[in-house]
């Protein structure tokens, strides 16, 4: 099983880099994954990551991008509720990349 090494401890991930165990997650892991993708996490990134974690906690799924976009617009303001904003933050896709940083499985329906 592949692992990533974050601050001295090995964390199990799947072949696409998603955490095997959601319970392993911490902010250092998110920052490490972002660093690997040449991204620096800003408070705007964290808003989305934390939102995804709360959504998963409540509904036991990662939301589809369409659902995420609508929810972000409602929570953080209309100007942020569009895929342009989310793709600017997460160039590999707000579903795939942000969910990975958040320690969640790949969103259902995301190919």
């Amino acid at each position, binding site marked *: 099983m592949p692992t990533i090494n974050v601050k001295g401890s090995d964390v199990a991930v799947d072949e696409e880099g998603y955490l095997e165990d959601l319970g392993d997650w911490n902010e250092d892991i998110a920052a490490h994954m972002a660093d690997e993708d040449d991204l620096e996490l800003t408070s705007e990134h964290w808003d989305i990551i934390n939102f995804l974690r709360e959504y998963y906690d409540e509904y*036991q799924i990662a939301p*589809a991008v369409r659902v995420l976009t609508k929810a972000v617009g409602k929570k953080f303001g209309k100007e942020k509720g569009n895929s342009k904003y989310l793709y600017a933050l997460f160039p590999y896709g707000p579903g795939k990349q942000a969910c990975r940083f958040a320690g969640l499985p790949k969103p259902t*329906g995301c190919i």
Partner: protein
Amino acid sequence: MSEELQEGVVKKMMYLNRKAPYGTVYALESLEVVLIGAAFDQDVSLAFVDDGVYQILNGQNTTKDSGIGMKDFSPTYKALGDYDITKLYVEKESLEERGLSADDLMDLVYEDEDDDWAEKPSIILVSREELADVMDEQEVVFSF
């Protein structure tokens, strides 16, 4: 079907759920197909009949001690509204035959975008006869 979808044809589709949530994989599979299929903007409804009504029972306990030992995926039904799936038909007779009533079901709601995001119930209680009529109107029925 894919060509029709590309042309923007909206079909009336029903997912018919007849089985208890745990013990077989039908309920979870149905739910996953519903969530994936939601991306195609079809006119989707769900129906819960027979043991299928147990899928949306309130307060499910699936711990090892309960004898089930599977992940409780019932919270995911609460996300259906976010996916614009707002018609969940529940057959009254199926509830009654199991000593259940609407009060035993989860509070499943959606926010109506056209009505200032007012929260509205998604569950529609129907008799066996009424459900037969609704099923008659469907162009596609997926049975799980």
